[in-house]
């Protein structure tokens, strides 16, 4: 995969071909809940990458003999669209796609509380609409927020980015040309809250120093991505909360800012689709986990505000919905 490293990828001023600094991420945009049928979904745009993630499950596994008696099976399907790359890709899954699917499944398995759902499968579908280098990483980032959107209990989110070598310098978040012409590529999946690496691969030639530098740079990048993931998740659920608050007090102002689609559909979905057992569990999870994260990771200012909101309001919202449903 890696090129010979002779192409000039960094100019005299230390800028890369797309104008970024060596340790700079591409612009990232994450939207949650973009596909209505899925239990959880996300769209990520990372540079020119456009990737959709959809989560279904926990659900029954076919064929049944593959089911595990003690935990859920996590199946990730990474697929590239035929038109996502310069030369049309054959629609049949390639060996590369199968391999990536496998390593992504493994990474996700490590953070999901799989023992809660024995004998089931949780399926994660990743469809690359446009590829611009680092698709497996962007896909993993999207997959983990889609899982959170589906209400799957997890130890933490995975944030993922590729680090590589361009003209013998370690650079963060390779894009297409650096991926092809650079001399090394190191995709990394990392959970900042757990301080765990759940995915790491490497091709090309790294010295030990370069490897160490690359790993640290990757972790720095993953932490930046983690903040974007959290923000995207909060955005969706604060929109739902505002809408419910609006039903109680119609005069509340915040509602105006909320995009229509999300407000209308998201709460419905939760009421109908989540089985009762989960309804009971879900609030617990939301209550306990985010504050923990906040306490550890976020700067002191944030510690006071968001946990309060989450703790007090989230369970109320759920109860209301349950009652309405009955």
């Amino acid at each position, binding site marked *: 995969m890696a090129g010979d490293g002779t192409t000039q990828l960094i100019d005299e001023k230390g800028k890369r071909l797309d104008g970024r600094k060596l340790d700079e991420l591409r612009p990232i945009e994450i939207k949650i809940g973009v596909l209505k*049928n899925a239990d959880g979904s996300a769209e990520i745009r990372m540079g*020119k990458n*456009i990737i959709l993630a959809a989560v279904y499950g926990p659900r029954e596994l076919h064929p049944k003999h593959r089911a595990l008696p003690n935990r859920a099976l996590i199946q990730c399907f990474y697929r590239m669209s035929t038109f996502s790359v310069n030369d049309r890709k054959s629609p049949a899954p390639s060996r590369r796609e199968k391999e990536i699917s496998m390593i992504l499944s493994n990474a996700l398995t490590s953070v999901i509380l799989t023992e809660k759902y024995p004998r089931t499968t949780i399926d994660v579908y990743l469809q690359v609409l446009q590829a611009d280098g680092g698709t497996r990483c962007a896909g993993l980032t999207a997959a983990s927020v889609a899982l959170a959107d589906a209400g799957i209990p997890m130890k933490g989110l995975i944030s993922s980015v590729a680090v590589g070598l361009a003209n013998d310098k370690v650079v963060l978040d390779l894009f297409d040309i650096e991926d092809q012409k650079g001399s090394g590529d190191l995709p990394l999946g990392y959970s900042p809250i757990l301080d765990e690496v759940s995915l790491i691969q490497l091709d090309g030639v790294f010295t030990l120093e370069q490897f160490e530098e690359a790993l640290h740079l990757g972790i720095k990048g993953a932490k930046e991505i983690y903040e974007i993931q959290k923000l995207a998740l909060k955005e969706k659920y604060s929109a739902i909360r505002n809408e419910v608050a609006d039903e109680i007090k119609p005069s509340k102002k915040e509602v105006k800012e909320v995009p229509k689609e999300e407000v209308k559909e998201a709460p419905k979905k939760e009421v109908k689709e989540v089985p009762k057992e989960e309804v009971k569990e879900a609030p617990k999870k939301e209550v306990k986990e985010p504050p923990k994260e906040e306490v550890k990771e976020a700067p002191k200012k944030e510690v006071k505000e968001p946990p309060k909101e989450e703790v007090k309001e989230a369970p109320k919202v759920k109860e209301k919905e349950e009652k309405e449903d009955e």
Partner: protein
Amino acid sequence: MADNYVISEIEKDYILALLDQKKRTDGREFNQHREIKIETDLVQKAEGSAIVSIGNSKIIVGIKATLGSPFPDTPDSGVITTSAELSPMASPFFESGPPSEAAIELARVTDRAIRESHCIDLSKLCIIPRKSVWILFIDFYILNHDGNLFDAATLGAMAALSKTKIPKVKILEDEEVEILEETESLKINHYPVSVTTYKIGKNNVVDANLKEERVSDARITVGFDEEDHIVSLQKGNYGVYKPDEVLQIIKESLNVSKNLRKELMKAIS
């Protein structure tokens, strides 16, 4: 499509009873489509692309052009080829694997409307007769399935084709073809759209949502060009029609097609 989607008897009766009162579950008229959204040029690496939603049904279309050999029986024509994938991300009832019958039908019915309307002059896609022509791949991925994928696919294909840019070429001495950086827009001569009508009990409604589709007995997809020619037709599923009924449906569909074309032209202009 989504054959193992089970709908309860109560819900089925409800849909049928409402239809007998000339009402639909979502309040639409019988000849009314759900809200249509068309977005083009989403994928820059494709020669053309579009993402279309009809209600909650959502489909992305990408066009790729590659150089290849013509078919022996049409040595001076380019080639168009369509494929559809009912991605498992689109519905809990789709499974990954080789294209299902439903996917093949969707691709072929849409292909027919495009091919038969002559919306693209295939002879313009020929570079060297018998040797080198452009092959246009029109690939559909279903992203969210909520019924009536046919109309969305045709709208998507036409929106994507009308934004398609194909590289210019230079013919070298030994009949080698060099692909240049410069591109030119694909010329579109006609704008076919398809209208799908579903037969539910005794009633015929356009653009069924997933639940309506599940309780329907049959469907008819008709493609029209802007000169009101019928360019394609497909009856699907097990139900049957009276001849007059077919005529009635086609006349109704023609009226509906004009609205769809308005949406299409609005999106690509």
